[in-house]
């Protein structure tokens, strides 16, 4: 079985205009240490590919062992003008958690 980010974390995606945020919430303190060290904004941006046209900014929440990724130009213009089947980007959390993990 391929190991994926989903094995270490769960999360939820939300929309504001054309900006999506994806929370990555660690399943254990050890998992948080690992994702905090390795899951950089650059890596997230590269993984999400053409889903995210703009920059990705990472925020850390040590108090709840979670990271928050804010993805700009990620919703094809936002819920009111997107042509995507998922205009709110609710599936973006799954897209990120699908990342293969060494």
């Amino acid at each position: 079985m391929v190991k994926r980010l989903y094995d270490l974390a769960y999360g939820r995606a939300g929309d504001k205009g054309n900006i999506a945020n994806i929370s990555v919430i660690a399943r254990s303190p050890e998992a948080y240490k690992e994702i905090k060290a390795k899951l950089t904004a650059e890596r997230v941006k590269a993984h999400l590919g053409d889903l995210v046209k703009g920059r990705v900014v990472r925020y850390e929440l040590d108090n709840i062992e979670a990271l928050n990724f804010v993805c700009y130009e990620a919703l094809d213009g936002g819920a009111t003008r997107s042509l995507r089947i998922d205009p709110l980007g609710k599936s973006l959390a799954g897209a990120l958690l699908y990342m293969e993990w060494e």
Partner: protein
Amino acid sequence: MTYRIGSAQGFYGDDVMKALPMIIGGHVDAVCFEALSELTLAILQKDKLANPKRGYTFDLRVIAQKILPEAFKRKIPLITNGGGLNPQAAAEMVRETAAGMGLNGLKIAAVSGDDVLARLPELQAAGEDLAHIETGERLADSPNQNLVTANVYLGAAPLVEALQNGADIVITGRVADPCLYLAPLVAFYGWAWDDWDKLAAGIVCGHLLECTGQVVGGNSLALVNRTNAAELPYLGYPITHVEADGSFILTKTPDTPGCVTLETVKEQLLYEVHDPASYITPDVMANFTTLRLEQTGENQVRVSGVTGRPRPDKLKLNAGRLEGFMRELIFTVGWPEAWKKVEQMKVMLGEILSRLPGIERVEYSYLGLNSLYGSVAALPDDPLEIIVRVMFTAQDQDTLKNAVRQIMTTGLSGPAGMSVSGTTVGAEPRYVIGLWPTLVGRDSVQPVVEYFDV
């Protein structure tokens, strides 16, 4: 002593009847209903253009008929932003409904002043450049001036005023979601408007409540292996027990399905959040990185240690502009040579769409293969079936209808085995609304509170 706030609506169309067991069971001191997404106001504008007495959410009728009598009997105030683009008309409707039910002495408050669509020229003339938050472009410099909505996110102050003046139901237009929930806390505890830590705690409380089912087991990836799906339509909506210092316990309506755990709270805490150390609201900048979560019992999570900083100088204004219309067609293509036939179909459709001058954007995706995950998804080499979704836009609906007619003339001439979904052929074009998020000076916006008595 605690003050208990229930949340019974997280979007236009939510099950507002979830308020009843909270109220009848004696589990809450106030109930809030959050009805407005970024898209909702554009939908309500269509209603209001068709009838100037409309423009509010229809859920308010259910609230007035079914929930208000029970709440009024127990002196539990109801607070909602479901007034949308017409809080006064909503208040008038509620007044008539309440009078018909004999709710004598009921006081309704309508909060407006958020709708600045008609004031945009005046604001710009007064020096507000209304530059787009992301791009920095000034609104006046943008070629599309087809504005359909423009609403400022108000804070809790006018709602607090209404509650302190004895309103039994407060109906507002655009108020920042968590501020709906902050208002009864400020009204009850008398928190000062510069007591930033307490205001921020109230904002976190509101943020956790504002999406109803999402904090009690709905839309929870963490709980996917523990979810009892048959219970999902009956989730008991969330309630917070807030102390005078702002710390609170998040729980849900007793004796109902659902659960409140550290996982459900963490999932909702970061929902639609950007910088968690600076969660911007009209009343305070809330810091989520200092708070502590603690499971204190079954379906009880205690939240403490929230801190805040002074409120921003400017308020957020979101304008909506009509950009045109969109149309969807769904085709299926099967094995053999499925990819080859899909490519032929795209060339054929491209030929038709490109000779129609009004067609603007054209987007293809393959349902079940890459429509959600784009380039993250690896496409199979030789699939048994491919479902192709084609989306295209134009300024006017006739161009789209004409395009569909011309595409359908190829029904017997297209690639082998191509089929089209009949329901998509018969569908109507949908509006494309572009949002223009910007900032406006606090002094440029004056909230108005009006009262309607039964």
